[in-house]
């Protein structure tokens, strides 16, 4: 009956939360004992009755009518029910993969209807917010690991660890398991993870006669921020000298609305937090810069406006003051062949493989500061805390995250899988530089700063980054931003 928890997640924050899990384990144990006593050692058919207890159900894992992946909850209901799943819209060929999966699910469980709701990616959070506010939300919603603390504190998501096999939880990349957990509870099964890679257009570098970035598999073996800026500066000057006035050394960001300040989590925070150091003294500004926010997640002053952070933002600003990158949103420069370097996720690669653009390209790690740093964040389906069908909703999440569905999703969409066994099963992650580097970046990345108000933080810092790119003073801008964020985070105290 013992329900092992992951032992490798012994990070500081988890201790308090484990007490909650222990209590439940204890209750489950007593229940079993009592039942055992009453039945005088007979086998326990009733064990399955105890709500979402993994012990009995785990044994039954193979008895589900379908490969429910890591699911370890009770057998699904035989009553006719409808599960609602809100997610971002994907292109038709990716939708087709999911629709195929639902068909399979409904074939095995004809009483369970899956009703999808598809929302433009940028509106997901807003819609979740309105749903939660109205008290009625879809059973499963696509969330993000960045916001797990808020899902926990706001009692928005259902803890899922009791519904999953421990082998499954252990299989998730450690950093992503950590990112998907809060106070010892596991809230969302990350189904792909995002980290930033540096893609480059070999032809442009060749034309300018500038050496390309190192194509390595180690995240620590790439360019430093200084080397990066120097190389791009040289590239720009040589291109201009050749009369090329349209090619940019660094293409505009294509996240969100594009341009500087488009997505602090996934791009600009890398410049800042890579100037920090996780191994520095806990009281040092280097350590605080790395964290990005205080341990309790409620203060940015002293974390976002450190000398190290200012240095990171000053580096970032140089990209614009030296005219290495356009100061506005320009769509798709890299794939159009007018941007020498582009920062984006792994699925860009699958896109490039399919499209076969008119140029040669390669990949290198994101430029490192004091440390090599990447900010992983993962889309992860969460289960609405008040769903009437917690087991079925968890089973749907587990099913969508099973090996077959994840591999199909990877093959179609090309984003990074999150489970170690999957990564090991896909050959290119072991033998091709781009994918080896991706695997290293995925495994070594850090999540977004842990704050219950990361959404506020993120939304407050984006325009500041943009103003810095347009010439604002990094130090005073970051100081103001930190003060503003402190004010925004006050409501969570």
């Amino acid at each position, binding site marked *: 009956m013992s329900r092992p928890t992951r032992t490798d997640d012994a990070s500081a924050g988890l201790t308090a939360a484990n007490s909650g899990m222990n209590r439940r384990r204890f209750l489950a144990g007593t229940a079993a004992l009592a039942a055992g006593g009453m039945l005088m050692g007979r086998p326990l058919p009733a064990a399955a009755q105890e709500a979402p207890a993994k012990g009995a159900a785990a044994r039954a894992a193979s008895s589900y009518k379908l490969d429910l992946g890591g699911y370890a909850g009770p057998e699904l209901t035989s009553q006719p029910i409808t599960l609602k799943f809100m997610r971002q819209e994907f292109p038709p060929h990716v939708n087709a993969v999911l629709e195929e999966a639902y068909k399979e699910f409904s074939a095995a469980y004809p009483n369970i209807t899956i009703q999808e709701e598809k929302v433009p990616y940028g509106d997901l959070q807003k819609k979740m917010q309105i749903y939660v506010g109205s008290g009625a939300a879809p059973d499963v919603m696509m969330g993000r690991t960045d916001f797990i603390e808020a899902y926990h504190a706001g009692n928005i998501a259902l803890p899922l660890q009791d519904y999953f096999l421990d082998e499954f939880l252990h299989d998730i990349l450690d950093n992503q398991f950590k990112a998907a957990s809060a106070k010892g509870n596991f809230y969302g099964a990350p189904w792909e993870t995002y980290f930033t890679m540096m893609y480059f257009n070999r032809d442009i570098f060749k034309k300018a006669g500038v050496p390309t970035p190192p194509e390595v598999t180690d995240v620590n073996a790439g360019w430093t921020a200084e080397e990066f800026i120097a190389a791009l500066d040289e590239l720009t000057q040589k291109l201009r000298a050749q009369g090329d006035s349209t090619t940019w050394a660094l293409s505009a960001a294509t996240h969100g609305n594009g341009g500087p300040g488009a997505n602090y989590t996934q791009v600009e925070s890398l410049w800042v937090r890579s100037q920090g150091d996780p191994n520095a003294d806990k009281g040092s500004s280097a350590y605080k810069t790395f964290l990005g926010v205080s341990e309790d997640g409620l203060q940015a002053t002293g974390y976002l406006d450190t000398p190290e952070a200012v240095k990171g933002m000053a580096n970032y600003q140089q990209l614009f003051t030296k005219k290495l990158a356009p100061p506005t949103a320009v769509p798709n420069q890299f794939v*159009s062949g007018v941007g020498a370097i582009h920062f984006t996720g792994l699925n860009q690669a699958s896109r490039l493989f399919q499209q076969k653009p008119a140029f040669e390209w390669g990949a290198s790690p994101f430029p490192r500061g004091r440390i090599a740093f990447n900010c992983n964040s993962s889309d992860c389906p969460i289960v609405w805390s008040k769903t009437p069908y917690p087991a079925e909703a968890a089973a749907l999440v587990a099913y969508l995250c099973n090996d077959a569905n994840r591999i199909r999703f990877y093959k179609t969409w090309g984003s990074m899988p999150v489970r170690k066994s999957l990564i090991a099963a896909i050959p290119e992650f072991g033998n091709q530089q781009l994918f080896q580097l991706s695997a290293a970046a995925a495994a070594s990345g850090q999540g977004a700063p842990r704050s219950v108000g990361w959404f506020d933080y993120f939304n407050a810092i984006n325009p500041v980054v943009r103003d810095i790119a347009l010439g604002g003073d990094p130090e005073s801008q970051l100081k103001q931003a930190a003060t503003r964020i402190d004010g925004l985070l006050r409501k969570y105290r």
Partner: protein
Amino acid sequence: MSTVASAAASARPRRRRSAATRLFSARTLGTVVVILAGIVFAFPIALAAVYSLKATQDILSDQYPLSLASFIPLRPTLENYQTVFGPLNFQNNILNTLIAATGQVVMAVVCSTLAGYAFARLRFPGRDVIFSLLLLASFVSVEAILVPLYSITQWLGLTSTYVALFLPFACNPFGIYLMRQSFREIPVELEEAARLDGANVWRILFSIAIPNVLPALATLVLIQFIWAWNAYLWPVVIMQDPGKQIAQVALANMKSFPNFPMDGPLFAGATVITIPLVIMAIFLQKYYVRGLSSSGMK
């Protein structure tokens, strides 16, 4: 094409030739200005239409640097339209938009005409106070009341219905205001005559008042249609059934995929949804263009 100029000329046959010349050159100038204005206003839309005839890859690479290729599809293709009407099933979204827009227009016309007439012509206690209060309601934007509006619609049990797409905005103060102003322009004598003949309020409204405000009604129809056509935030929030989702949200989806530009289908979709409104504007223009025979009030 018969012209105002010739009408004016016939109205004052004894004017000298120089005046006619002046008028003629004024007309030429006017024509030039009209066409220039048309080109300026059409340009951004025409650009979207041009893009819709290019492969996504070509749109991206033709944009920068600016060249002839930026404005002309050198390798025209219909593949975007095939995508939009094929795998993306955009026609379904257009149909949904059409249903929502029609519902909104019908309700807006009924509500605004009735209320506009009552506020313009009928006397009843509290009339002006109620009118001012109703106007106040138009000052608030949907972004500002999204959450309470959602709760109300949910409470009414309308979530994910077609009705929910348009009902909250079907009646709006602008329409009432427009119709009220238009009804007040009708000479009172027309209605007085009918009243003396014993016609009741409803008969006067339908047989005298409404026929005299058709241009305003046409404006109301067109503007309401455009608003319904362009609604985005509310449908995103209230519609949970992808099968009933409207075209603007489908368009937003096309530009939301990271590292997967769908600019071609996006511009094709944007072009397609502009066309019905332009056709509607042309269809309704008979109400805006005076026939030479008609002179003012009927």
